């Protein structure tokens, strides 16, 4: 890492993952699902029940982004591309953004922003409680997602706090499974579950091997 600035710049230019534009590209990619739902609502392309399509779509993308975030570290090692690590934070923050939009869409479109009714709903329905709990656990991670927070907490404590992401993934998956349980429709949750098992299992295996 003792390379001189011009040499470093030349290296960066050669490696697309290190190019400054790579983060911009990822940022735009992460906004695409949101843009599609906004466009779909305005142009009536979300079918007979657009409110349901938006609520469920935002939930789907929350899980997908979280899974991608969790895939960064294993992919980085499997593909020997350490540069992948620089995208992890943005993916994590976007997971929080989509989770928050999912919650707002539910509160607004499904519950008409009736706060007492929403609180009753959370208490009454386990699958809503699971989703809400996952969002609550995302809050401290999103709140400490900048460099100064890492400094203030100390890297050790920050890392420890961010291990919460594993619990969030499991609770988020339970929210999805429970939501589909009434319709006996486990095909999609099974795919998410299998991928998560690989992502978490790989970490356990690494730990045991070390």
């Amino acid at each position: 890492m003792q390379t001189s600035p011009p040499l470093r710049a030349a290296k960066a230019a050669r490696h697309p993952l290190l190019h400054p534009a790579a983060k911009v590209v990822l940022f735009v990619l992460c906004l695409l699902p949101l843009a599609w739902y906004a466009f779909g609502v305005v142009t009536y392309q979300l079918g007979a029940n657009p409110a349901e399509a938006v609520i469920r779509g935002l939930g789907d993308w929350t899980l997908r982004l979280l899974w991608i975030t969790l895939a960064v570290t294993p992919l980085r090692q499997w593909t020997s591309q350490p540069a992948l690590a620089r995208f992890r934070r943005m993916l994590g923050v976007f997971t929080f953004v989509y989770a928050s939009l999912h919650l707002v869409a539910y509160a607004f479109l499904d519950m008409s922003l009736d706060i007492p009714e929403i609180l009753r709903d959370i208490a009454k329905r386990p699958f809503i409680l699971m989703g809400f709990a996952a969002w609550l656990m995302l809050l401290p991670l999103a709140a400490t997602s900048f460099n100064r927070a890492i400094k203030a907490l100390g890297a050790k404590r920050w890392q420890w706090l961010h291990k919460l992401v594993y619990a969030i993934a499991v609770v988020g998956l339970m929210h999805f499974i429970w939501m589909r349980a009434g319709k006996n429709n486990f095909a999609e949750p099974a795919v998410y579950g299998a991928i998560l098992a690989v992502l978490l299992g790989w970490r356990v295996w690494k730990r045991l091997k070390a």
Partner: protein
Amino acid sequence: MHLLRQRDGLRIPSSEITPREHYENRRDWLKSAGALGLAGLGAGLGLDAAAQTAGPGKLAKLPATRSAVPGAMAMEKLTRYEDVTSYNNYYEFGTDKSDPAQHAHTLKTRPWTVAIEGECAKPGRYGIEDLLKLAPMEERIYRLRCVEGWSMVIPWEGYSLAELLKRAEPSSRAKYVEFTTLADKAQMPGVRSGVLDWPYVEGLRLDEAMHPLTLLAFGLYGEVLPNQNGAPLRLVVPWKYGFKSAKSIVKIRFTEQQPVSSWTKAAQQEYGFYSNVNPKVDHPRWSQATERRIGEDGFFAKKRATLMFNGYESQVGQLYAGMDLKKFY
């Protein structure tokens, strides 16, 4: 009126005076006026044809006359044909609501026979052509409330199921009616999945099945049923959650014992035998107090209150007199 005549005496068609979207809006208004029981107004203007709920002309016409059964003509704005035929729960064709419209074209609705069996004096088999002629076709406008919390208003064509059942002369031992629907892997891709125990089975108490509002439907919007809506014939029980209204029926059986419905089998604590629409009895995982009317007032529309027995309480409430509806959900 002479001002509207051209010199050669030909009348200018109204379509040339009024912008197209305006007179089409007027037709829409007349259609809803018809649905609101103001059809007489339209008829007086010689526009009763416009008041009829016309389909898009995609499928064979199924002429019918307005039903005289009390409660059979809901006075509400109809759900668009496109929404009725693209947002369906028909798991034999997939679990996504867009799946049936995409995959149901493989369903063969001819030849089609319905077997009548069980506790009755005259069991038999009826071909679809005979069933279409068995009783006069009536148009009925029913609210449809799905257990998932959405609803539609649909103009169906058919006749009371009782017309068919009474011909079979159910015996004194017949207490229930069981409906079995088609489950053919070759025609129905969803049947390969283990989501439900196929074939799909539903059931009604005999008095529910004989109630005049219980409809054996062959069409919607003035045309034969699209495959994704349960062609060639289905049940429509408007005061129960939609899944009770079995699609593509192949067997009707009178039984002494209460039939076990497919959804009850899959999740007993969530889907009971009765499954009457009831805003006070919640599904274990969601409230049934409100519903989203499909296509109503756009994206930000508030949900509407769900009505007891889906608004058919005065017609069917007495069927459940004295019953604990929390216990018999």
